[in-house]
């Protein structure tokens, strides 16, 4: 039954991919079903941007659904919401009026809520042969099963609750912005908004509302709080879709808002997007660095990558405002490319993390290790994804970050000094992000997969079944293809960006081998680089073999004279991240506590040591906590209105009626 549902989802994904590709290549159509929803009817329309996102959702859904067949097995929970989730996501970019959009957006939020809350409803493991249904936050090697599930359930409930609140706060912003626009333009159809004359103030107000709403879905800091809670709580295939494509629909909205609905954008929108992107990128990866829950780490990286996408978009908006259309296309195409790339490698990494979690029964990296020998397939796939997300050549993450860098570096053509400095900030932030992401994935892969296993669960881990490996392999292939084939992908994205900016000149030069960015800029051929790396790596190997220099001895690791080598002697994830915690302590606000229990006779005989090291989330402490406290206080005051007496309520209704008659 659930296998059928996931197969259906995969088929839907294939269909969406085909429809999306045709839209991406220039096919446009409109479907209207007047009776389906009130206020304007169900209306779907296809253009290049919508096509891009539908294709993205489709291509991501296929491997993830195949993986789910192996991952969820016969577990029926979540299968139907999953299919609904996929359909709702496909409908969002196609929605052509406010009502259709609202329904699709809410359906998407609702379905994903159900998937996140799934583990809270039923706490028993259902996988034969697997230690637990999915990740659990256990910090010792052999957790007590009952306690773990209770903890799991509590965690899922809390995460789902935060998610629901944030999703609806965002939705309120979106609805307010859209209704204002509808009232001012006299139409609920998105296509009519473009030609509406608005005062600058009105446009700014609408931009702020819509941008807040979309940015909260995209997980832009400081609206990200739900993301690192909800993504890890969901089953891994759902996490892959949520991180890979659902948050991209927030990005989709930002594209529409800043470039199409109420464009052309003034400079400060571009600055706001670029700065928000830079902050999200740097802070997102810094939080990921100190995170030792494998899936939460990946969730923080989603925040980082959305930041990188917004850097490209912000650069595009600023170039457009400065009248540099060609460069605007460059920035926007870079943002779109990174959107696609992130779906591929983040999907892959979440699926890999899911395989690890399924096999070890924990998400805590500190008890993993040595999995490369026990799960060689998963390890290889995860390593490929790690290389891709760290933007290392020649894989796909590198190509889109390279394009983003090109866009930023071209700011030397922007005459305005202040805006030039914003670009410089973006450049420095992006470079720092690249380095930190590399560091973080050394930790994520090195601690999880390499060296000695740190627990019994890790020691007895087994490789993922075939369906799961197939899903991962497909996404790994996508990472390689998007990395080696920018000469095919970029011109198509240039068309999408051209549609959005109104720039129609042919923009992309180069041949099948080499990507040339227009003007005197730079060129890149990842294909040539991949071949060169391969040759340069194989030549010394062959030369050494040919000369017979192949002697190798396997021996124990040098241990300074220690006799016993155990897993407790290797570096932990906490230790690995320690330099970063010290360097960036202004962000983490770390709190240390060291309790040493000494023997009563002598303080040199230590009975027990407990060391607590916590980092704090600045956004939660300084923004959300005061906000929710204030909200709580206000509601506490208003509570007096609710007396519980029917007579009083009748008076309220009467008063409201009178008030409306007077005002109306």
């Amino acid at each position, binding site marked *: 039954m659930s296998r059928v549902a996931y197969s259906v989802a995969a088929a839907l994904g294939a269909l969406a991919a085909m429809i999306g590709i045709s839209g991406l290549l220039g096919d446009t159509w409109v479907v209207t079903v007047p009776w389906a929803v009130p206020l304007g009817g169900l209306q779907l329309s296809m253009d290049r941007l919508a096509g891009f996102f539908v294709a993205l959702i489709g291509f991501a859904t296929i491997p993830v659904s195949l993986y789910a067949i192996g991952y969820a097995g016969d577990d029926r929970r979540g299968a139907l919401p999953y299919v609904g989730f996929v359909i709702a996501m496909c409908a969002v970019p196609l929605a052509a009026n406010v009502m259709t959009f609202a329904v699709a957006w809410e359906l998407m939020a609702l379905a994903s809520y159900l998937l996140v809350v799934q583990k809270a409803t039923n706490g028993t493991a259902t996988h034969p042969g697997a230690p637990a249904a999915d990740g659990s936050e256990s910090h010792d090697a052999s957790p007590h099963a009952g306690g773990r599930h209770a903890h799991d359930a509590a965690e899922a409930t809390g995460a789902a609750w935060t998610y629901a609140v944030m999703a609806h706060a965002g939705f309120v912003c979106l609805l307010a912005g859209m209704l204002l626009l509808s009232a001012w333009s006299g139409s609920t159809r998105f296509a009519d908004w473009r030609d509406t004359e608005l005062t600058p103030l009105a446009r700014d107000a609408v931009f702020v509302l819509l941008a807040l709403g979309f940015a909260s879905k995209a997980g832009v800091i400081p609206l990200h709080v739900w993301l690192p809670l909800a993504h890890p709580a969901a089953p891994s295939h759902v996490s892959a879709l949520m991180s890979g494509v659902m948050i991209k629909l927030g990005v989709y909205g930002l594209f529409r808002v800043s470039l199409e609905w109420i464009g052309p954008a003034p400079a400060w929108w571009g600055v706001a997007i670029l700065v928000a992107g830079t902050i999200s990128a740097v802070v997102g990866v810094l939080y990921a660095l100190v995170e030792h829950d494998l899936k939460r780490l990946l969730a923080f990286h989603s925040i980082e990558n959305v930041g990188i996408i917004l850097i490209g978009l912000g650069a595009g908006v600023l170039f457009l405002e400065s009248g540099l259309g060609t460069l605007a296309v460059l920035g926007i195409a870079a943002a779109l490319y990174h959107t696609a790339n992130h779906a591929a490698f983040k999907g892959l990494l979440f699926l890999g993390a899911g395989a690890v979690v399924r096999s070890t029964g924990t998400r805590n990296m500190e008890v993993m290790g040595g999995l490369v020998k026990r799960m060689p397939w998963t390890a290889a796939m995860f390593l490929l994804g790690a290389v891709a997300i760290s933007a290392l050549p020649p894989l796909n993450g590198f190509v889109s970050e390279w394009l983003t860098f*090109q866009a930023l570096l071209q700011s030397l053509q922007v005459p305005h000094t202040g805006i030039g400095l914003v670009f*410089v900030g973006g*450049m420095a932030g992006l*470079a720092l992000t690249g380095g930190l992401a590399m560091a973080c994935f050394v930790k994520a892969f090195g601690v999880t997969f390499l060296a000695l296993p740190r627990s019994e669960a890790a020691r007895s881990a087994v490789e993922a079944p075939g369906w799961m490996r197939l899903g991962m392999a497909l996404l790994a292939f996508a990472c390689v293809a998007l990395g080696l084939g920018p000469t095919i992908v970029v011109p198509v994205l240039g068309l999408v960006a051209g549609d959005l900016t109104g720039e129609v000149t042919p923009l992309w030069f180069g041949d099948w081998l080499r990507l040339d960015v227009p003007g005197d800029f730079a060129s890149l051929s990842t294909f040539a680089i991949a071949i060169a790396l391969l040759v340069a790596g194989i030549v010394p190997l062959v030369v050494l073999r040919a000369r017979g220099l192949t002697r190798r001895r396997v*021996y124990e690791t040098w241990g300074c004279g220690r006799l016993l*080598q155990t897993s407790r002697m*290797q570096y932990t994830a906490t230790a690995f991240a320690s*330099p970063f915690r010290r*360097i960036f302590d202004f962000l983490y606000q770390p709190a240390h506590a060291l309790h040493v229990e000494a023997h009563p006779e002598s303080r040199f005989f230590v009975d027990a040591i407990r060391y607590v090291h916590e980092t704090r989330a600045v956004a939660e402490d300084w923004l959300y906590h005061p906000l929710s406290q204030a909200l709580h206080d206000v509601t506490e005051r208003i509570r007096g209105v609710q007396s519980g007496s029917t007579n009083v309520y009748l008076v309220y209704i009467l008063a409201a009626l009178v008030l409306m008659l007077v005002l109306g």
Partner: protein
Amino acid sequence: MIHDLLIAAAQALAIAALAPLVVGFTRRLKARLVGRRGPSPWQPYADLRKLFAKEVVVSENASWVFRATPYVLFAVMLVAAAVVPVLVARPAPAFAGNLILVMYLFLLGTFFLALAGLDTASAFGGMGSSREVAISALAEPTVILSVFALALRSGTIDLGGIVERLGAEPRLAANPAHLLAFGAFFIVMLAETGRLPVDNPATHLELTMIHEAMVLEYSGRYLALVEWASAMKLTLFMTLLANLFLPWGLPGGLTVAAMAGGLVALVVKLAALALLLALVETSVAKLRLFRVPELLAGSFALALLSVAAVFLVR
């Protein structure tokens, strides 16, 4: 096409051949500066030869990542040598991905080396890896900004374009902003290649070591490849410094004679930079590990000032 490949190969070979000499020459200069005779500058070649012939000892905890890393590292440096303007201003366009590509190729090397450090389950390896990635991450923004300052002055972001423009108009380089960017890049070079005051290349067993701790488990031909690659990284950084900040003597033409001239000019500039490096290394003490971020922040400030200076005067 064939032509491009030949130039790329020539550059890679030149860097690979020169790298041990650069290291040996710097060591010799350092020895002389502190009053020792020091080994011959050709000593690193003999070391490599000896290491290649030796047996490799691999930890029983290590996986294929540990065994593949030396080759990855070596390949990365060879390819980077083909991208950087070494002998000619404009290397083959198929390889020219400009500065960003060079930066990320180095990061690819660091990524695998740091994984190899973790792979043997040794505390030393993990310590080295953790520190190495921290320093290399913090150095990235400075690299990009200091080269961006040059790009702003020469009006192009292409490394080859910068070299040509500055070579044609030396007055562009006679500028305080240029010097600031040079200083920033020099500090980054010290950090990225594990030189004093960030890391001590001469010591093996200190708890403060970074690079040497990470590669502690390597031996035999693996160690030879890792050491050779490290020497190439140093040489490439020095070449970048030499050709970007002192871009004279680099031919625009692609004839063999012109490239030989470029090689001579490069050797002279590398010798001058090696002297500067030796002077710096003998006159400063090693910094405490957690003072290094301050040094890097200082270099970032230099680069930012350099960019700001260009913005202000244009």
